Every structure is written in C-alpha cells, then in structure tokens.
C-alpha cells in the first residue's frame, strides 16, 4: 500500500508490519506521533500487541528488555532527553542480549531547550552496544526497522538497534511511502526465537554477578556480535532488495564518490541536500561526491577506507559535537584511516546543530573549501559552520 506519510508514521508502520508484540514508550516532542499512532493501532486491534504506557523512558526500556528476555519482540521510540534518560538501560539491553528495536527522532539536548534536529542524543550513546542507523527518507525509516529486527534477532547477533530520523525534516514531513504487506514482511522476517527465554521451567539466573575472571569474556561476546553484524547488515540489505525491490547501499552509500576531488561524508538528511548540490556542481565540472553513513555502529571502517582511496579530500559533516575535540563521526573516520597509507586530508565540519538548516548554499561553500584543501592538508582541522556570535544580542 502506498501512502503519503510522515517519518513518525513510517516508524509506527515499521513496528506494525514487523509484528512487534510488546511496546513500552513515553511521549516526547518530536517523537509523540509515533506512540500516538501505535496507540491507535492497538486500540483498533489493527496491531496485536501490548502497549505498556510507562511513566518514563527509563521504564520504557526496562520493560522492553524484560519482555524481550521473556521472548517477545519489542519496540519503543524516543528522542533526546528520553534517550539520555535511558542511557543506563541501553547498556543493560545490550548486556542482556535483548534485541530491542527503537526509533529515535534526533533532537537537540538542553539546556538551552531546543526541539529541533541535532544528532548529539544518539552520538552520545555510541558506546552502549546498540547498532545505529541514520535514515535519509521515510521509506528508509520503515524499511530499516524491518532490517534491524532481521539482523538483531539472529542468534549469533542478539543486539539492539536504534533507527534514527532527523527531527521534523523526517519526523513531521510527509513523503510517499510504500507500506509493505505484512505477509510479505513475514517471509523476510521470521518470528523472534531467542536461544533462551526467561520462562518457568528454565530456572537459571539471567544477568547474575560475574567475577573478574569472566566478565571480559561476556563483553567480548558482544563485541564479536557487533563485528559479525557488519557483514550481516550488508547481506540483509541486499536480500531486502530481492524481497521489496529497494536497498540502501549497505553501511555507507556512495554518491558520485569514485574519483571525486572532494567528498562530504555525513549521516541523516543533510546527505539528501548534499546530493542535489553534487548534481549541480558536477554539471559545472566540479568533481564532488557524497558518502552517506547509514550505519554508525557497527562502525563501517572498511567502507571508510574505501572512500579514502576514492576521494581526494574529505569533509566530515557532523550534526553534533564531541566536546573537547571534533565531530563524533569525524573522530571515528580519522581513527579508521590512521593505519592506511595515502590518506586524504580531512576536516571536521560542525553544522546544523539545534535544527539550523543545512542549505544547498552552505554545502556548496563547504565543497569549495574541501576542493581548495585537496592535496594541501586541511589546516583548520575542526570548523564550526556559520557561527553568528552571541555577543551584543
């Protein structure tokens, strides 16, 4: 069924066609319309699920983890402060090997208060052991939920996932979306069948105290699964193409990157605008490209190294900041390239925080800057784009 729907609606449909069985969620702008939609689905029996209307995001995640441990497919959705409140439980989920799937509408963190797009909320969860998917369209939002269940629930993966939409740009903007038939999804996504379940008859301890002789090995198991997930995600994206006729380039989507003099690497919707700018600049004879990092965790270091071989210079555009150094994606990209020879120069750009538009004009200027430092070195390693200055206000 094709419908013109928002990113939030697409998230709700994603949970529905994936047959999420237990939903526990708490409202926060700009995520609210996801939980409202799911409440409608459940209230109208369009969706066979239990929706626990918890009293906080912390409890939402705690409830999802326990339900998942009991063998139910679980879903939640949140944004910024809700995600931050969950932090302890995010680590609990990955440690529990509970493949919860969550939508997060990327929103700035306060103070100062802001409800607009910014990726600081999810970037701050980098080390929680969750897979992170940054989407570019409402269709991708819906499709990635299905893909995340398929990969996350595999017995050697058992890892939770965050599906990310930029606030308002996707969450509240309607686009045509193909909502797949639940029967078609059933053929792609088998029922959740974890290797162990917390049910009577299985009298074990789930999450007990582990002494220093073994704790590391439990952590290594999570690390191994994340590493395995890298290739599994590429495969599942290809398989998705066969079932649904769509795919998203695996972990990183390359747009006109081969032989480009300048590439902007970014995550989320800024990539769409950048693609338009690339088309325009290419027509003008400038060799520019865009690499869209779709999956940030597990980190796609192989794709990043491939990009380094294709591009003359890279600007990494982060919609958040890792206080004390650079943009979080930039930090990771620079780290991934350290051990290869012939690295292109890289600059970390910080732009679009708190919902400021990243316009085609801004991006064109950045491309020109990157073209200018190709072959020379980036000089200024970190650059905040178009600061206005608060003095004198």
């Amino acid at each position, binding site marked *: 069924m094709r419908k013109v729907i928002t990113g939030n609606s697409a998230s709700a449909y994603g949970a529905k066609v994936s047959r999420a*069985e*237990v939903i*526990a969620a708490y409202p926060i702008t700009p995520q609210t319309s996801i939980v409202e939609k799911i409440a409608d689905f459940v209230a109208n029996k369009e969706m*066979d*699920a*239990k929706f*626990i*209307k*918890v*009293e*906080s995001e*912390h*409890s*939402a995640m*705690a*409830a*999802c*983890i*326990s*339900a*998942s*441990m*009991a*063998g*139910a497919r*679980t879903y939640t959705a949140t944004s910024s402060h809700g995600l931050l409140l969950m932090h*302890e*439980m995010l680590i*609990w989920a990955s440690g529990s090997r509970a493949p919860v799937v969550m939508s997060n509408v990327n929103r700035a963190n306060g103070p100062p208060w802001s409800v607009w797009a910014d990726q600081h909320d999810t970037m701050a969860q980098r080390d929680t052991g969750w897979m992170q998917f940054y989407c570019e369209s409402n269709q991708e939002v819906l499709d990635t939920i299905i893909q995340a269940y398929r990969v996350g629930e595999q017995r050697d993966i058992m890892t939770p996932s965050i599906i990310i939409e930029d606030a308002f740009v996707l969450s509240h903007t309607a686009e045509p979306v193909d909502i797949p038939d639940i029967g078609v999804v059933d053929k792609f996504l088998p029922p959740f069948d974890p290797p162990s379940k*917390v*049910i*009577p008859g*299985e*009298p*074990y*301890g*789930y*999450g*007990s*105290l*582990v*002494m220093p002789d*073994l704790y590391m090995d439990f952590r290594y198991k999570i690390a191994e699964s994340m590493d395995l997930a890298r290739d599994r995600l590429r495969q599942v994206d290809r398989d998705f193409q066969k079932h649904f006729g769509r795919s998203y380039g695996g972990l990183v989507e390359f747009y006109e990157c081969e032989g480009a003099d300048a590439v902007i690497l970014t995550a989320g919707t800024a990539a769409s605008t950048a693609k338009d700018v690339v088309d325009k600049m290419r027509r003008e004879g400038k060799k520019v490209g865009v690499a869209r990092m779709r999956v940030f965790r597990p980190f796609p270091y192989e794709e990043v190294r491939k990009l380094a071989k294709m591009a003359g210079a890279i600007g990494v555009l982060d919609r958040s900041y890792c206080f004390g150094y650079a943009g979080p994606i930039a930090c990771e990209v620079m780290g991934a390239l350290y051990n290869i020879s012939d690295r292109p120069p890289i600059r970390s750009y910080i732009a679009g925080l708190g919902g400021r538009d990243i316009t085609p004009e801004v991006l064109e200027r950045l491309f020109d800057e990157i073209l200018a430092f190709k072959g020379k070195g980036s000089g200024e390693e970190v650059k905040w784009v178009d600061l206005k200055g608060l003095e004198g206000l």
Partner: protein
Amino acid sequence: MAKATIPEEELMLSGHVGCLGCGATLTMRYVLKALGKNTVISVPACCWAVMPGPYPLRCLEIPMLYNAFETTGASISGLRAAYDMKGRPDINVLGFAGDGGTADIGIQSLSGAVERGDNVFYVMYDNEAYMNTGVQRSSSTPYGAWTTTTPGGTTGDWKRQPKKNMMEIMVAHRIPYAATASVAYPEDMVKKLRKGIDVRGPKFYHIYAPCPTGWRLSPDKTIEISKLATDSCIFPIYEVENGIYTINRKPAKKVPVRDYLRLQGRFRHLGEEELNRIQEAVDWDWKLLLRKEEFMKDM
C-alpha cells in the same frame, strides 16, 4: 495435629551467600513456597542480587531475572505483557526488591506498574537500609537509627525522619491488595501470597526482614526481634483489600517499644527522651490503624 499450611517443596536451595540469621533469605523461601514453580522473579540490585552467588551459581528453582536498581516495577510489567502476549497469563510474575529499591530509587517504576493495574506480585523485603552497599540510610530506615550515612557523630546526626509508609502509598494507588507480613509469621505470609494468586492486578507485600548485620543484632534473634516488632506495634501485621483494612494480629498486651529497640545496636545511643518520642509515634500510628479498620467496617 494441625494441618501444615506451608508447602513442603523448597524452591530456594540452601547454598546461598546471605549472612547468618538473614531475614531476606527467609522471606524468599516462604514467598516462593507460596507462589510455587510457575513463577518468574525479577530482582534489582540489593542483597538478593548477590545471594545466589556469582555466575554460574544459582540458588532458586525458578528463573531469576536480574534488573537494574530502579526498574523492578517496569521489569515486571514487561514480563507480564510478554507472557500475556504469549498466552501465558497463568505465570506468576514477581518483583522482589529491598526497601531502597522500592521506597527510594524504584518508587517511580513501582508507582507506574501499580497505577496501570498490571497483574503482578511485588515484594518489598524491608531490612530498613541499603544493606548491599554497607548499611546506608533509606527512606524506610526508622527514626533514630544509626546507619553509615546517619552516623550520629558529635552532632547526634542519626536518622531524624520517620520511616516512609509504603503501605499507605500503595493504598493511595487504589491497589486491589496490599499486605504486611513478617518472617516471624510464615503461615500468615504464605496465606497472603496465595490469596494474591486469585487477585487480578497488582499485589504489594511489605515484608519485615531483619538484617542482623546491619542492625547490630545477634543473628539468633531474627525471629525474636520480628515478634517484638509486631507485639510492640512498630510493625503491625495487616492487609488492605480494595481499601478495606484488616489487622491480622492484635497483641493482647502491647510490648513497650524500648524492649524492641534495645536488642539492636543501631538504637543503642537513644536516650530516654527519644525512646518516649518513638513510643508516642508508635502509639499514634497504631491507633490510626485501629481506627481505619474500625471505620472501614461499615463501608
């Protein structure tokens, strides 16, 4: 011979690492006897998260899910939803937490679960402090007690606030069933838990569970102190069913509360004036409880 009301089957094995005379271990033993094998337990950070021993040891014959300190209410809601979805409404879902995990850091998630009316059991085993971390005060620590964070010092900085009344907080949620119980009266405890099996919705149990280690109490006095707690009316045994109060044990003769306090090192510093003050507070609360029971009779 009277018929034994406590099931013989042991669902808690003897190989645990709790201290000598620990009331929390007795609580678990009786609670599981009452609820039986078709039960799943969720336990937050507390003494009971350590008692089964480190991986791969266990001491319960039912599945034990470890949860984060403040999440017991949410965890049991999640389990309940999952079992209901899977067609297993018969499974008893039990949250089992200390007084800190219940009355302090976990009160929000507990309040959520109870307000939603989720069909779960919740046991707060009350050892009146954070024992796992070494005897720090909780809001359930009684007035006048020494703990490591109410050390007295040169300023007499003992616990200066009365114990939080979790039963009243639960009753204010219009919970269908709430009861106090004590390790001194296992038949009563078992009866109340079994009663809960037929109650749809949340069931809350405030269970008196002495901690010899933290109370500076001789470990052979666990049951004696528990009886004194009820006989002095500082810990009355009662239940509230849909708002109706029933006191299950009324001491024929009230024991002075000082007889209860003086067995415990944590109250050793209390002087005459404070002992009287505590007695007055206990008398007031007991009178109030009697009045509530009386008042509800006509409802």
